Every structure is written in structure tokens, then in C-alpha cells.
């Protein structure tokens, strides 16, 4: 997998803020660059993949991770796909 260009910390943010931040971060990237997003709201498990499909961004990775304090984090790695996707 290519290198991550930017990591977005969306922990503790509630729906729809993780999505809004992802959308705004992707907007600033170049075609082909890669954004990693880390969330704690379980709603992002649906929202982020759906949003990627809608805008034809490539979802390279989606996984759940357990943190040291036994909380769950949702991690997404997105490659900016469609140039007009804004």
C-alpha cells in the first residue's frame, strides 16, 4: 500500500462530524493521495464506506481496532479517487 499522506483524528466526534471532516480533508488532497481517518463513532462504519462509493474514492482499508483502554476505534484508509469529487 502506498504511503499515507495525512491522518485525520476524528476520535470522539459524533455523526456527522467525522464525515464532514473526512470530506473536507479529502477536498484538500491531490488525486491519488491517501487519507487515514480514525473514529470512535460506530456510525462511521456505514457512513465512510458509503461516502467513498458515492464519490468513487478508493477505500483501501477498513478495520476495527481495540485501544489500550479497551475502547473500539474504527480506522479507514482512503485514496482520493475522482477528481471532481468535492
Amino acid at each position: 500500500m502506498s504511503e499515507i499522506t495525512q491522518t485525520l483524528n476524528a476520535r470522539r466526534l459524533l455523526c456527522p462530524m467525522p464525515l464532514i471532516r473526512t470530506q473536507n480533508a479529502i477536498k484538500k488532497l491531490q488525486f491519488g493521495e491517501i487519507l487515514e481517518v480514525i473514529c470512535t463513532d460506530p456510525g462511521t462504519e456505514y457512513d465512510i464506506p458509503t461516502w467513498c462509493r458515492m464519490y468513487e474514492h478508493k477505500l483501501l482499508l477498513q478495520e476495527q481496532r481495540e485501544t489500550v483502554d479497551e475502547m473500539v476505534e474504527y480506522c479507514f484508509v482512503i485514496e482520493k479517487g475522482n477528481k471532481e469529487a468535492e
Partner: protein
Amino acid sequence: MNPENIKQPKAVALISGGLDSMLAARVIMEQGVHVEGINFYTGFCVEGHTQAIRNQDKNKPKRNNALWAAEQLGIKLHIIDIVEEYKDVLLKPKHGYGQHMNPCLDCKIFMVRKAKQWADENGFDFIITGEVIGQRPMSQRKATMPIIAKESDVGSRLVRPLCAKFLPETYPEKMGWIDRNKMHDISGRSRKPQMALAEKFAIDEYAQPAGGCCMLTNEHYSKKLVDLWQAKAANNQTRDYTLDDIIMLKIGRHFRPKENFKVIISRDEGESNFLRGYRSEFTWLELTSHDGPLTIVDGHPTEEDLLLAARMTARYSQGRDADTVEVQLTTLDGVSKILNVEPLPADEVLPQWHI
């Protein structure tokens, strides 16, 4: 020839996630118009928040309804954060509040105006809303329709496909982009015409949040918001609020035993976890001898007030019937101590404390 006549017209639809806005977008898509959706986040949207937090909602689908609706329609959705700008709407609504703290008419005007700006910036020709005449007492009356169009500066570029037949001809109709006969004449509170239309379009699943999709129309939430403002006023602060302030009003049981402090007690593990994230910003309490809630104290409590908060925390814990329980109190400076307290009897939690 006007170039607007030849290209495919583009419209932006306000998508709330509910059925009406889906239908409105769909009616226009059927006529060959390119439609994209726009959704505004005010901070008061019911959405995933409480779902993401409370255990009791754990089995509901966790998703953004507007995004989901857009996917069903096969259109793009743009979600816009208006939390900051929305404060002006909520704090000084020119047309006043509805039944609770909902400034619906000003809110509609604001959203349509923002959608119009977005449309201008992105080369879209007109705006679609799912309004229905007579559905909502405040914002969806025939008399308010021209007010929204006028005050949002959108004028005749605002199309309401569900009740267009009752309203004057719009610009997209004049241009021949859309046909009035393919729009509708829905009015009133009955949902039957919408159901029929949904069936026609084979839309069989849509969000129907009980109590609507905005916290401001909720009586209990509105009370807590007013209480927040009163407490701020008592401290010579303005009514300005942060996103954290207004999200906190959705979490836990809220009590104000005295003017100088408020007690928030979590109702389940999900809420405890959520409040735990705010510990560094508040004085907080948690039982060490029994399972129980997490309590946050906001304001300027005295020693005696904190003792009361500890007894209230005990009252909502597994130790409620014990003679005494141990409660850990941590103040803003990060210093903790253990209090041995008697759980407050149920009848000493006074009804007027509840916010």
C-alpha cells in the same frame, strides 16, 4: 439562444433523510434534471448522536440518514457544517420560535439561502425542497412559502415539487426544464399521498425518527437549552454555546438542585463512556464500592453541593439500598478523594430539580 436552454439543468435538493425530501428530489430527477443533495448540520440534528452513545439504541442502524437517503436516490450528498453560523439563527430568530425552541421559519430561510449560495458557487440552476403546505404549523404554511423564497434571495429558483401545483410558476418551469403537470398538490398532515408516491417510486425504506429529526422541537431538550442559557446569564455570560454544550444536553439525567450548579448522571454504560471523555473539563464522581453511573458537576458547587451530588450518584447506583457507599470525587485540579455517603432517598430528589 440562451445557453441555459441547451445544457442539462442541475438542481440541488435539501436532503434531511426523511421521506418528503427524498420524494421531492426524485420527482425532479424523473424529469431528466441532474440532482445532487445538500444537508446542513446545525448541531441539533438528532442523527447518530444518541444512537452512538446510548446502549438502548444499540440495535438501531447507526448511520447518517441523509447520506443513506442520497445513496438510495443514487445522488451525491454534500454535508455542510453550519454549527457556528446557526447560532445567529437560534439566538435571534427574526420570526420567533415555534412550540419549543425551534426557530423553524428562520432556519428554513437560512438553509435555503445557504443552498442558493452553494448552487451559485457550483454552477447549479435551482433549489429543491420537500416542503408540503400545511404540514408544519410554523414553517410550512402557504403564507410562509413566499417569505422563505423572498428572504433567502432564491426567488423563483426554489421548487417544491410536492406542492408546486398550489404555488406560482417558478423559473425552471418557465425555462421548460421541468413540467408542472409532473409535480404534485400535496397538502395537510395526512401522509397518504407521500406513501402512495413512495410506492410508485419503489422507495420502501426511509427514516421516520420518532419526534422528528431536530432536537429543538423536543420539549425536554428545549427545557435543558433554556436552563443552559439561564445559567449562563446568571454568570453574566452570553447565550453563546459550543457544540460540546449542546451535545451534553442529550446525555444523561440533568438536575439543577440549586442555581449555582448542575448535575449530569449517566443512564447507562454507553453514556458513562461518553461522559468519561469530558472528565478533564469538569468535577466528576463515580462509585468505588458498587457499580454505578458517572456523574459530572457543572457550575460552581460548594463542598456541601458536592456532597449532595455524591449522594445523588449513589441513589442511581447498585448501592442505592446500602447504608453508605464510597464515592470518588475528582475536582478540576485533578485531585481525587473518597467520600463515604448515604444514598439519597428517592423522595428527596425533588421534582423541581429535574431539567
